[in-house]
């Protein structure tokens, strides 16, 4: 069975996705050490706060810096609306700050489509996000796209709220 030379981990992509969805709570809290207790003895030189937060230019830094790593679409649609533009503008700001960074834009669909059409639709959505970033001056050579169709949902329910979360294009920093 191991003759097939195909064996890299797809779960890597899935792990990256689950990491994305946890971003808000993990990135935002500030380090607690500075304020709490009054210093009993005056220190001669104030120590600078220890370095904290994500490494600049990393995926974690991207998640902490941008409005969101993803934009959402209506059923069967792939147009970039005003909310999406604001999100992508924040991503473009970060990409300008780290000109060496590259991103993969993943296009996804809800489960209420046929498998192959959804692969094509996910590609359309990923490219819609990519094209808007390019229109903001981001070099297209820094952005690759991949479509997962309906194969990697973020929300698991079979309801409109879940489907709305799944019709998305997610930017992931290549590390």
């Amino acid at each position, binding site marked *: 069975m191991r003759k097939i030379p195909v064996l890299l981990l797809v779960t*890597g992509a899935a792990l990256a996705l689950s990491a994305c969805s946890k971003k808000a709570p993990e990135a935002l809290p500030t380090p607690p050490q500075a304020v709490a207790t009054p210093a009993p003895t005056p220190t001669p030189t104030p120590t600078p706060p220890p370095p904290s937060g994500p490494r600049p230019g990393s995926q974690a830094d991207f998640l902490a810096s941008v409005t969101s790593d993803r934009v959402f679409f209506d059923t069967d649609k792939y147009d970039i609306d005003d909310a999406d533009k604001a999100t992508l503008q924040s991503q473009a700001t970060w990409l300008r700050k780290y000109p060496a960074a590259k991103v993969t834009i993943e296009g996804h669909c809800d*489960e209420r*489509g046929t498998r*192959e*059409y959804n*692969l094509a639709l996910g590609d359309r959505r990923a490219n819609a996000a990519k094209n808007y970033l390019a229109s903001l001056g981001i070099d297209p050579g820094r952005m690759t796209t991949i479509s997962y169709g309906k194969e990697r949902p973020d929300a698991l329910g079979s309801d409109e709220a879940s489907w709305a979360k799944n019709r998305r294009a997610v930017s992931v920093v290549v590390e």
Partner: protein
Amino acid sequence: MRTAFSIRFQILASALAALLLAAPVMAQLKVDVTAEGSSSLKVAIPAMPTQQVVDTPAGSSDALGQKIADVIAADLKGSGLFTPMGPAGLAAPSMGEVTAPAYDRWSGMGAEALVQGYVRTAGGDAQITVGCYLYDVALKQELTRQGYVVAPRDWRRAAHRCADAIYSRLTGESPFFDSRIAYIAETGPKDHRVKRLAIMDSDGANHRFITNGQSLALTPRWSPDYKSIAYVSYIGKTVRIYLYNVDQGKQRVLYETNKAVFAPRWSPDGRTLLFSMATGGNTDIYKIAASGGNPTRLTDSPGIDVGGSFSPDGRKIVFESDRSGGQQIYVMNADGTDQHRISFGSGRFATPEWSPRGDLIAFTRIAGNFRIGVMSPDGSGERLLTNNWQDEAPTWSPNGRVLQFFRTSQGEKGTSSIWQVDLTGVNERKIPTPVDGSDPSWGPLLP
């Protein structure tokens, strides 16, 4: 409409009538594969006797006689057209009775047809010979006889071919049981689903996993000669179409590109494949030699053109496009000329597959529920065969009389399974798989 031979030949209105009238009228025992609500023919299938009990790698010869009868009965039952009696509960005939049935005994049990046979082998690795006889019980007449010589491990193929001979003789249709399915075996939670390429016989037996699940496998298609399976695989963030050689256990990339490629489809002669490729969000259908080389672009609409299925003569292609807004079904010549829409019903139409008989196109219709249906190649005579929350991606049996597809259930624990339905829409059943399944691809009759 019931004679001593239980003839089922009902004249129905509309499309069914045309199908029926095209079939030859037979004077004897006859089962109609298209009539809705026909009662099923009672077929007695006792265990097959053996001249001498010897051991083979697949079990003793008398145990094989029992198992072969079991498989024949399961095949016929699964078609929905027959009510098998036995082999459990029936005494096996003597070797002499195989060719001279005790008709009164079988008619006394209500059997309309009788299947008998024998297993003969020298034992060990020697090939086994399986005899297969079909009788009309009321007429006391032999209807057909066949013999199969196979390796002991291929005993199920002898059983399927016997079931095929019976099905063909009684329905007037081409056979289909002796064939295989490639599909995607699914395990794990909905957001981290593991999808493996797997193959099995048409009844779910002889199941084998091909890939180990570390890559994400989708949409397999058997080559017409069963030597190769084309499928899509995600390895990390690289998506490719592979041709997997079943005998060698090796695979190669169909076409190397950094664009998104998916939806591989074989031509009937196995020399070329269609595939879909997205360029900057615009997906089109391409044709490429199975040996590789440069692809030829067949569609150039600004919308999504995807999939494709050749007519059996290889001259036309039915495919799916959203150039008019939503997904609809179109037909074009094999060189891409004369593209025209054939589906005009409400909702969307997807995943068209041309019947190997050429007379029908199967599809997924999306209007609320996802349903499997068929229509003529000119778009007329649409009939829906299933009604469930999400039935998707039909694939034809080798004789164009039965479809398999996959059914997905709702919710966080939603799963997929492979189902089968015939053209009446009445005979619907789940195909057993060791884990969940999707994307079935039904190959032709085995060579």
